[in-house]
């Protein structure tokens, strides 16, 4: 069974909707800027990748608006775009043949902050009846299945950034068991004071105030990460069934996938990132020479950048493959980041152009990467997407044109 992606829905800080994000991304338009959603002046981090101009009433039924956090609203919108792109009317499918497997990492955190505030400042009787299902990590899978009438296999994977690829891997497993369609991907949005403060102590966030200097993975000036909101929802189907129903396009197949985990810090054992990358290629039956571009995890934290660069050069050789990080325009989107990279990789295959990493003006020579810093036309058949989740999670996924 070949699992193919037939529909894309992207919500990112530089655009809403697949083609808008793709145009902005090729043009190198960054969505990283000063935080406007709340007063961040008292925090050491004051930049983020916010999605501007998302009019929730245009995308989400009014009844659902007070019941849902922003990340669910974005997921609902993106799922609609993905189905439309795939030419799928869910009502024409058997409900039990359609599944939903999404990744999530922070739940409806802003919704949660509001309800925690009511609880602690006013009392339990002020907590919303919607809190019980608006904030938990499974909410997007649940709401998407209800919205589109999909009663087939469900799933929710959590491994921060890496979870976004785990969701796609799990969606592919469901297809191999006979399901006809799975809505998959990931979406996170936790740009609220409590969401920022909960991540500050990691020490991974950049305190650089200049939006063009804050998030510079693989650059000599790398100073950490910038948080963003967004993600992508994808339609995945068996190739045969997608062709049979006359899907408007088969963007590409999920050729291979692998997940590994790092040993406990301080154990002296080596990272398992390279093993995840190699495992994804092995499971796809690919040699490194057949990979045309790598969408890097691109941490932006120097020691993590070095580890990834070593894994890439170890597998592909020094400057052996073009490497890119469009997330330099979004920030780190948590569980949404890798699905966005997969969507962009598929668009890159379609259009024969590698999207750029922006603002990386001084790539560190010692990393020996062929870092793509301006949109680069290329003949592309296969892309490898890499994602690392906070705490030692590594995943890699290969997509290939068919």
């Amino acid at each position: 069974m070949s699992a193919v992606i037939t529909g894309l829905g992207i919500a990112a800080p530089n655009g809403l909707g697949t083609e808008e994000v793709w145009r902005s991304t090729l043009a190198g338009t960054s969505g990283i800027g000063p935080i406007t959603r709340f007063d961040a002046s008292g925090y050491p981090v004051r930049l983020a990748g916010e999605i501007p101009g998302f009019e929730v009433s245009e995308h989400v039924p009014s009844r659902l608006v007070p019941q849902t956090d922003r990340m669910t609203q974005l997921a609902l919108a993106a799922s609609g775009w993905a189905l439309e792109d795939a030419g799928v009317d869910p009502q024409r499918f058997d409900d039990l043949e359609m599944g939903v497997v999404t990744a999530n990492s922070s739940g409806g955190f802003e919704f949660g902050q509001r309800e925690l505030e009511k609880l602690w400042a006013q009392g339990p009787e002020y907590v919303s009846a919607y809190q019980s299902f608006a904030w938990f990590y499974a909410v997007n899978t649940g709401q998407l299945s209800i919205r589109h009438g999909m009663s087939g296999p469900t799933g929710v994977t959590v491994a921060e950034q890496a979870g976004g690829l785990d969701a796609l891997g799990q969606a592919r497993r469901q297809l191999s068991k006979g399901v006809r369609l799975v809505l998959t991907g990931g979406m996170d949005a936790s740009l609220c004071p409590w969401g920022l403060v909960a991540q500050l102590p990691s020490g991974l966030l950049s305190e650089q105030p200049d939006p063009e200097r804050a998030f510079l993975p693989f650059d000599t000036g790398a100073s950490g990460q910038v948080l963003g909101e967004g993600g992508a929802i994808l339609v995945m189907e068996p190739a045969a069934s997608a062709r049979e129903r006359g899907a408007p396009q088969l963007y590409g197949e999920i050729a291979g996938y692998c997940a590994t985990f790092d040993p406990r810090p301080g154990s002296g054992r080596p990272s398992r990132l390279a093993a995840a990358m190699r495992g994804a290629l092995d499971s796809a039956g690919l040699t490194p020479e057949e990979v045309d571009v790598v969408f890097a995890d691109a941490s932006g934290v120097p020691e993590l950048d070095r580890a990834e660069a070593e894994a890439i050069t170890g597998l592909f050789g020094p400057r052996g493959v073009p490497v890119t990080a469009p997330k330099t325009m979004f920030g780190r989107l948590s569980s949404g980041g890798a699905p966005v990279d997969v969507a962009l990789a598929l668009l890159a295959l379609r259009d024969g152009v590698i999207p750029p990493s922006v603002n990386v003006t001084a790539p560190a020579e010692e990393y020996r990467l062929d870092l793509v810093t301006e949109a680069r036309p290329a003949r592309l058949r296969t892309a490898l997407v890499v994602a690392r989740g906070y705490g030692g999670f590594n995943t890699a996924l290969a997509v290939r044109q068919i």
Partner: protein
Amino acid sequence: MDRLVAITGIGVVAPGDPGTKAFWDLVVSGRTATRTISGFDPSPYRSRVAAQCVFDPLQAGLGLQEVRRLDRAAQLAVVATREAMADSGLELAQERPERMAVCLGSAVGCTMSLEAEYAVVSDSGRRWEVDHTYAMPHLPDYFVPSSLAAEVAWTAGAEGPVNMVSAGCTSGLDAVGYACDLIREGSADIVVTGGTDAPISPITVACFDAIKATSTHNDDPEHAMRPFDRTRNGFVLAEGAAVLVLEEAERARRRGARIYALISGFAARSNAYHMTGLRADGREMAAAIDAALAEARLAPEAIDYVNAHGTGTRQNDRHETNAFKRALGDHAYRTPVSSIKSMIGHSLGAIGSIEIAACALAIEHGTIPPTANLTEPDPELDLDYVPLTARERDLDAVLTVGSGFGGFQSAMVLTRPGAVRA
């Protein structure tokens, strides 16, 4: 040949005393661990009952730094993992870490620590722009619930695929289902899997109060959770963890491991209807049961016992009774069905795994745990719910189900090792 999945190790920290033995002794006794909430003042709440673990982390073998770093859900999971690993008899030095995986379920992650930290940085909800200078260093671990899976992986020494499944109240079943896939497809030979949740804190209690899902039998806490009883009025919130060691069965046999049970089938479906509501007909749970039986290559008549979701809400017990009839046909009327939640409450993303452990132990001991507190049958619910007293019976195949917010319905089939397949 198909790769079969064997359970070779069990670790449980359930309400009452910790450890698998204490857990099993409790659930076959018909006694309960539901009590008035003692962790904070429950007086402002509608439901004031919970099933708490008698758990001292230091006594359970955790170090001071682990106690400081780990949310209670992580503490329970790490202790359950240590018990499961020891029980499995695996010699870690002889295992290849890259062939070991972890798949852990949790519905609400590190919610207790998150709430405690929120209360401090917000100065008890007084400020929206919370004060980062009061944030503790481990807060990012609580923010990403996958830290729970990471702790289990480090405890078990796993370096293969590690994942957390957070599908609400079916997490504990779905995580083990995911783990079975990893073994069957050959991504791992050993998977340390299970579920953990420690949700007994003000925000979770307030959440379930707001939708009237939890029991208000506050004046009789030991009998507050009454699945399938006419007087049932909701579940009792609980905490706990169960961790299982799963191994490819042939490999487990070769090393002479004790095999409690095989996991022969699993499926998850969704009702695509409502985040918290259930249609009475049980169609999607029945579809999950059908698919799990098909994967196990078993006929409905092969099922000897059903471990019910049995939350004791008005709608759940009706919903799943109909699902059992739909999936098992007339055989449903001949099959014992029980809810151990009547004794240990509903620990959200952990309970599915705790119930898998109960099913494996039921097969091992030939004993069906009862449904406690079932003294006034509901005329609408007409199956054999094994009231009050455990029952001896040889079990070749058992079914366990879960149902959760989001509309999720999951079903798993366990079989006795060596039992003939239908």
